[in-house]
């Protein structure tokens, strides 16, 4: 299955521009390469084309993508349209063939996306971690616990208010996994699904004196405005490994969606996993703190990043 993508590279080159330029009488903000009419852009490769990236709110709202994308746009003469949607929606958009590349943080959902044939050439990109935050008074008494699942169980037993994203985002997925690992079924008046973004969820938790699970980046970027504090640290600050928050990037399979801009998606993956850009990611700071830790560049092979977790050629049923 993985070899399929490599074979498709040559045949799909340039196909993304074949149907551009029609039906666009407007302002030149249309899809792939509609600026020049028709085949005018053929001789200059990808220049003028648009890469549609669906991603999560945490990469977008922290300002990371805007900070690094200018470099890619200048290098290739292209435009990157970053659409911040939350992991579930970002993958769904790609599944419908409406984006060229996805950058998300829920390995289970990414694996399903790959197994269904929609995503190829996945790379580990960077990581940070999740933290359990809550009011300083800490009514359930979870401060300093070394186990995230134990902390959640304690919150549930105390029936202390807990705010859940409830939006099928990467953070929500992680939260549900944690409850499952804790063997606790959350529910009741104390457990509130807000269906909102991380920033909103933090604000709601702040106003209600509730606990919530947050990615560290969003929490850092909002910490000055809220009274919540980190009660259970993630692995970056020596917390439990279960709170790790790895981000992956992968191209949409042009064998499934032949209008996916596969060339440019692969150029993007190559660019963002290059040592220079990985360095830029590690240098990106907010309020004096590093938000993301690059992990694409490594001396040692890591084959697991290319395939669904637990996949091996012997046990493959595909």
């Amino acid at each position, binding site marked *: 299955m993985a070899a399929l993508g490599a074979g498709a590279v040559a045949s799909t080159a340039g196909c993304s521009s074949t*149907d551009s330029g029609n039906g666009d009488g407007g302002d030149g903000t*249309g899809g792939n390469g*509609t600026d020049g009419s028709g085949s005018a852009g053929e001789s200059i490769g990808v220049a003028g084309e648009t890469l549609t990236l669906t991603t999560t709110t945490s990469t977008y*709202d922290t300002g990371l993508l805007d*900070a690094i994308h200018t470099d890619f746009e200048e290098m290739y003469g292209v435009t990157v349209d970053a659409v*911040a949607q939350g992991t579930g929606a970002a993958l769904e958009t790609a599944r*419908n*063939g409406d984006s060229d590349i996805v950058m998300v943080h829920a390995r289970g959902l990414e694996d399903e996306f790959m197994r269904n044939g929609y995503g190829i050439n996945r790379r580990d990109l960077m990581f940070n971690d999740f933290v359990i935050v809550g009011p300083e008074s800490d009514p359930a008494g979870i401060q300093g616990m070394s186990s995230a699942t134990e902390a959640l169980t304690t919150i549930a037993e105390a029936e202390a208010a807990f705010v859940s994203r409830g939006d099928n985002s990467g953070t929500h997925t992680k939260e549900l996994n944690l409850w499952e690992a804790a063997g606790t079924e959350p529910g009741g008046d104390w457990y509130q699904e807000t269906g909102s973004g991380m920033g*909103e969820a933090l604000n709601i938790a702040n106003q209600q004196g509730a606990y919530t699970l947050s990615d560290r980046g969003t929490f850092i970027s909002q910490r000055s405005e809220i009274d919540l504090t980190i009660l259970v640290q993630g692995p970056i600050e020596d917390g439990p490994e279960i709170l790790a928050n790895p981000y992956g990037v992968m191209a949409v399979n042009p064998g499934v969606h032949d209008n996916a801009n596969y060339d440019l998606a692969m150029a993007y993956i190559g660019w963002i996993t290059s040592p220079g850009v990985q360095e830029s990611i590690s240098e990106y700071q907010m309020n004096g703190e590093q938000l993301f830790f690059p992990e694409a560049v490594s001396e040692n092979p890591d084959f697991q990043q290319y395939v669904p977790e637990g996949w091996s050629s012997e046990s493959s049923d595909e």
Partner: protein
Amino acid sequence: MSVPIEPVAQLLSVALDSSVLLGGSGPLDSSVLLGGSGPLDSSVLLGGSGPLDLPFREGYVWSIIYVSLYVSLTAVTLSTLFSVPVAVLLGFAEFPGKGFVKSVINTGMGFPSVVVGLVVLFAVSNQGPLGALELIFTTEAMIMSQFVLATPPITAITLASVSGVDDGVRDAARALGGTRLDTALVVLKEARYGIATAILAGFGRAISEVGSVLIVGGNITSADGISKTRTLTTAIQLEARQGQYGTAMILGAVLVALVLTVNAVVVHFGDSGVTR
């Protein structure tokens, strides 16, 4: 929170002067609207003085205002061109089932914008019937969904005002030898205030909705902060998502000022047309 008040007043006066705004002819000259020269210098609106330190980048606010106006004015213009003739025809025609048609149009006024966004998404998505046009995440798709949203109120209110024109006016026009077209024009003239209200209602619906443009537009800016499909409403939503309620409120004030301005311009033109 005293920051927004002065800029809002300035925005009002500036926009009132530029009749370009209402014309809807072609793309608004971005240098006029977004230039930052003139009294609306961005440093006035977004200057770091005061308690709010606003993180907006150069040209950001202007570009989202431009996209908001471009999308909504285009959608309302197209919708008006469609709705008014339809409303006049419906107003003049008598046929069985007319009441039902009216009910359908009135129901359309209550379409949730999110549902409209989903329907348009299915249409323009790669998998949908219009997928080959690659309209997803473009202003064209946003215009489509706002067209769908603005058409029911414009049609319904126009229909009501056309129907409300006294029968005597029609009869008089016919008696004086007018053709059906002449009669229609006379009725339209009589109903002009109602039609202006209809257009403003449609515009209000279009520029204030957030659900559909977020879904079909994607809320995109370029890396340097210039809007591609971000409107004022989706920008407000983005700020709120991040818990930046202060900046969200300021963008909300800009939106209100914009709607106020457009309304003022329409009323102004409507009044000046009466003397003819």
